């Protein structure tokens, strides 16, 4: 659950700096709306296909990347058929497909940890050290909490079942959250206790 769909590789696309990729993605998507037309869409599409080829992403993975969006794109297509014509409907849907695939390319060729590190470094440059540190702590803590919350939820579910209680959403969520909050407060105290060079003292 905590791994992304990263496809290992050593291509130019893989090696490019994460923030450059994010920046390019942003530029391309803006461009597709500002310069609305088949020509710019086709150009962006071609560049994208080239990048996928350079990064050697297997076609199967490309299909998997676009599949979750298909039913929404279908709806949009139908809506546009009534509104405009099939050509414009096709254009809007293809534009979405290009943007989604461009963003997927970023995810497929960039390790999550590299992207997180790049974001942390960029934030460190624009924010005071203290805030950047807080953000980096929050990211790690969240990764730590995901399995912990899942465990707490499972325990609550089993306890409710053992007591013969039905498993209504409310009966599951409330105790899970109260226990998670208690655990979080204890973790906050542990962070303070484990940081003898600062947090205690204002």
């Amino acid at each position, binding site marked *: 659950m905590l791994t992304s769909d990263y496809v290992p590789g050593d291509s130019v696309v893989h090696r490019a700096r994460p923030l450059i990729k994010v920046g390019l993605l942003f530029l391309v998507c803006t461009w597709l709306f500002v310069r609305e037309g088949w020509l710019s869409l086709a150009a962006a599409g071609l560049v994208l296909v080239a990048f996928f080829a350079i990064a050697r992403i297997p076609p199967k993975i490309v299909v998997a990347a676009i599949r979750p969006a298909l039913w929404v794109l279908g709806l949009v297509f139908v809506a546009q058929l009534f509104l405009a014509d099939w050509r414009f409907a096709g254009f809007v849907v293809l534009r*979405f497909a290009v943007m989604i695939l461009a963003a997927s390319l970023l995810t497929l060729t960039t390790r*999550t940890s590299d992207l997180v590190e790049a974001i942390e470094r960029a934030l460190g440059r624009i924010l005071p050290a203290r805030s950047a540190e807080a953000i980096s702590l929050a990211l790690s803590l969240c990764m730590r909490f995901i399995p912990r919350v899942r465990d707490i939820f499972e325990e609550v579910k089993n306890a409710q079942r053992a007591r013969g209680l039905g498993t209504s959403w409310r009966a599951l969520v409330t105790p899970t959250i109260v226990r998670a909050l208690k655990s979080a407060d204890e973790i906050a105290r542990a962070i303070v206790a484990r940081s003898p060079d600062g947090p205690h003292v204002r």
Partner: protein
Amino acid sequence: MTNDTTRDIVLIALFAAIMAVLGVFPPITLPLIGVPITAQSLGVMLAGGILGARRGALSMVLFLVLVAVGLPLLSGGRGGFAVFLGPSGGFLVGWIVAAFVVGLTIERLWPRLGHVNAFIACVFGGIIVLYAIGIPWIAFAAEISIAQAFVGSMPFVPGDLIKAVIASAVIVTVARSYPVITSP
């Protein structure tokens, strides 16, 4: 970092994690209209309603950053930058504002917090404000009219109302047994 900031960071991280865990539950499909209901928008209401406006909104920011960097934490295992560029990207970004508004409303109502008040806060922030961001976004990105985007989004409302009922019950119980928001 003071002790209070440390606690805020921990709570923000906790609710981002709760969002991720809620994403594991398979979407329930409403029988008649065939629209998938996910548990995650429940998490948006809970984050605002339990942590308050500021921390609730920041927990959404944190969660969306983790989604954006590629972790498949959205329900159905979706993640990566692409989800923000689809037609429903506005609803994801809207979670930040929605959590903030739910939190702000709950904070204002705090001394008189009850099931009805909490439900109103959840509907206002978690449905009305959220749709007010999501619908224009769809209209712009898919080049349809606001009215059409509105009609297309309505099938999700019954599910969101059910979530507002659950969320308000949870918010009220947690406020009594382990309050995190302190009254203004």
